[in-house]
Structures are given as C-alpha cells and as structure tokens.
C-alpha cells in the first residue's frame, strides 16, 4: 500500500485506484475536471461529463481541504441529492486500506450507474 507519512492511502494512489475502477465500469473519465460550485471553480479528481459520475479523493497533501470549502461541499451534495450528478466523496482519513477503497468504489458505481442511467429511448424522444 502506498501511503503518506500519516499512514493514509496517498493522493496519487487513491486517484489511481478510483480511476481504474471507474474506467472498468465503462465511464469516460476526465481527470481534474473543472466544475463551478458555489460560484467557485473546483477541479474534481475524476468525472465523466456525459454520465455525470465522478469522484473526489480528499487529501491534505493535494490541498483539497482548502479548495473544498463547506459552501462548495454543500453545493456539491445538494446537486447530488437532486440527481444532477453523482460524485463519490472520500476523505483519505476514513480509508482503512486500498482494498476497502476498491470495494467502496465498486459498490458506489453499482448505485450511481443505476441512478444516472439514461432514460429509456421512448422517454428520450
């Protein structure tokens, strides 16, 4: 396990694991995808702009705690709650292991892909 000096899965490794699982689920992931939240442009670690599914691995090392202010998180969670997007928010401090991170990603993808599935063809028309 690649960990930082605090013993957490570090930013690069966390992004790599999540990116691999998201791509394996068929998502067209864009890294450091810009998104305006609470009037501020933040860059999500990984995001599929078409399926509107992504992830943000929050680490101290990457300065995420400053960028993801309480207002930004509130906006992001409100949009997730409204079904506009699905962004998995993971704080490095709560990740016990790489395997646990992988399992959480897979379960999230199961939920998110169902929720963000495109409407049936008839409805789209």
């Amino acid at each position, binding site marked *: 396990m690649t960990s930082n000096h605090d013993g957490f899965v570090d930013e690069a490794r966390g992004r790599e694991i999540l990116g691999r699982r998201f791509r394996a689920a068929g998502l067209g992931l864009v890294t450091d995808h810009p998104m305006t939240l609470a009037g501020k442009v933040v860059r999500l670690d990984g995001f599929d702009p078409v399926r509107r599914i992504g992830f943000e691995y929050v680490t101290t090392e990457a300065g995420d705690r400053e960028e993801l202010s309480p207002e930004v998180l509130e906006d992001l*969670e409100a949009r*997730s*709650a409204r079904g506009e997007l*699905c*962004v*998995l*928010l*993971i*704080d490095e401090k*709560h*990740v016990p292991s790489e395997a*646990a991170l992988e*399992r*959480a990603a897979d*379960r*999230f993808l199961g*939920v*998110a892909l169902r*929720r963000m599935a495109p409407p049936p063809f008839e409805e789209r028309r």
Partner: protein
Amino acid sequence: MSSVTGREWADAARVEHDWLEKGIAYNEQLLGQYAKRREAVAASAAMAMNELVCAMLPTFDAASMQRAVNWTGYVTLLHARPLVAMENERAKLRERLAAIEGEHRFVHREHLRDPRGGKLVLELAELTQSRLAFADTLDNCKHPRLAQLLESGYGTEAYATPFWRLSYYSDWEAGDAIVERFPGLASFSEVREAYLRARDAAASLDAAAAGIRAEIAAGEALEREHSATAEALASLEQRTLADWRARLAKHIQECGPALGPRLAAEPTLGMLASRALGLAAKLGYLDRTAESQLYRAKNELLAARARAEREIRKFSSPKRLYSEIDREAAAKRFRPRDERYRKIWDRYQQTSDALFVFDRYDRCSWTAEFLWWDAMTDGRLDGDFIPEVAEHRRRFPHTARQQPRWDDDGHLLPPEIHGAAEPDGFHDPS
C-alpha cells in the same frame, strides 16, 4: 620546569584507579560487617528492652502501673488513665459487635451466602445461566462499526447517510459482515432487532446480577468486620499492654542513666535496665561510627574513582597524550592514598570490635558522669565524632582519658591539640 606527559598522567590515574577499586571493595566488606553486627545488636537491644518493660509492667492493672511509675517516673501511665480508656474501647467494640450480630445480612449469612446453596448465590447462578442465552447473539454482532450502525439507524428508514459518501459503503460492508453470521436472518434490520432485544435483556440481567453481587460483597464485608471486631475485643488487653510497654520503653530510653537512683533498690530491674540501655547505646555508637568513617570514606572513594576515570579518558586522547603538565602538580595529585585509608579502616575496625564484643553491662554506674562509650572502649578510643560523647566530654572534661586522636586525614594528633586531660578521678563503675 620539569614536566610529565599526558600519557604519564593517564598511567598514574590508571594505577590510582586500580587502587581505588580495591579500596572501594574493602570498604564495602567493612560495611557488610557493620550491617551484620548492627542487625545482631538491634535484635539484642529490642529483646533486652522488652524484657525490662515486661518486668516493670507485667500486667495491666493499677498496682503494676503504680510500681512502673515509681521506678521510671513515667507519670503519663497514670495521668492518661489507660484502664478507663481501655474499658471505653471495650464497650465500643462490644456495642459494634452487638450491632453487627443484629443485622439481617449477618444473622442469615449462611442462608444468603453459603457457597453451595445460599439464596443469593443460587440467584446469581440463575442469572448467569439466563444471560448465556443471549451471549451468541451479542458475540456474533461484535464489530468495530456496530455502534456506528446502530446510531445512524442503518437498516431502518431513519438511515440518512448519502450514497456518495464513503461511510455509506463502510456501513454497508460492516452490515453485510454481521448479517453473514446469522444464517437464519435475511437483513441487517432483522439482526438489529435481535441484537437490541438481546442487549436490553442482557443489560437487565447484568443489573440484577450486579445488585446481588453488591449484596454479597456487603454481607462478606460485614462478616470480616465482625471477625476483626471480635479479634480486637479478644486482644484488647494484650494490645493495650503492649502499647503502653512500648511507650514506657521510649521513656526509659530518653531517661538513660537518670533512672539509676529510682532502680537502686531493685537490683534485678537495674541489671535489666543497664543491659537495655547499654545495648541501645551500642547500636547508636555503631551507627555513628559507620557513618563517620565508612560512609564518608565510601563517598570520597567513589568521587576519586570518578575523577580518575575522567582523567584517564581525557589524557588518553591523541590531543592530550603528549601534552606537558607540571611534575609537581602530578606529584601532588597522585599522592598515595593507602596510608590515610588504612588508618581510617583500622580505626573503624578497632572501634567496631571494641563496641561489638562489649558485654559488661553491669559496669553501668548510674551516675551523671557515666558514659557507655567510656565503658565500652575503656576510655581509650576517641569518640568525639559522636555528638553525645563530645557533649559529655564538654560537660565532664575530667572523665576523658588520654586517648589517641586523629585528624580528618587519619593522622594522629599530638595531645596538646585536643587538650585531653589525664583521667584523674575517672570513674570506673566496675
């Protein structure tokens, strides 16, 4: 200027260090001898004082106490009214015993707490057995995240953790792990119900068991108190007598030879008293002698060894190996120590031997001029390093014999320096 090199200095320090090691070991041998002698004398002194106070106060009654006061002047024995105090104590102990013997916990102690069939013991066993029924459910639910699952309402409609947060998936994983341990249950909500029922039932049984355990403990404490009180009552007279004998012994110790006139008409008591006081004095002299000579020498020798070690390190370094040092300073620094310490140790041994072998306690003259030190050393050894002896010399200078005396370095002093008088009129109690 004549000089020595750092190497020569270090060599001299090594020689001194070797001598100091031997000196410290020898000093320790003498300290070991002192410890053994001290132990033997302390035991004899305690025994002699006990014999004396037992003879003076054989029983705890008014007549015995009056006689002890007459012999020792220890009027506290009468003024403190120890017999009244003892009777008061006896009444209190009896009252407490009666109170304990009236308590339900004590009266029915066997019925309640008999290990094989006591009511409380059986109830506790039943509760323990009942609790076992819930143990499996509680054990199977053990998980580091269980408290979090219960608090967040996982498995119920109240669960509100959003699915985009990691904790949602951590809860999910933990919940699945727990449900797997219950083959008969399909979901965490069923497990949760079973767990909460088991937890509440176990808590209720635990509370009941704690209450019974507390009741058993209180009963056992009461039984212990009853035993202790009964024991205290049975030994009251004996303990009180021992206590007053100890106080009397302390008083006798403080009086010393001043007791003499009071014991003049009691030769047996006089003999016991002189032996007890002589042994107590011997113990004090042995202690002071060891402190003044052996412990002081030990501190000096240890400090000297540390200095020699520092110098060996310092002058063995390449930087100092060939440095030049004044030869006179070296000669002064490395003066032989043997003679000085040999004198200290010889002096200690001579004094300790004289004190230790002394057994003529009958030589106590019971006069103000009498000093045990003089009796024990036959007045031939200097005891001025002992405050009691020095004070006695000041008060009765004519009692001092011409004694050999030494300075702090162990050198013999000429008689005119200490001004000791010839022993005209020295009182030999023998």
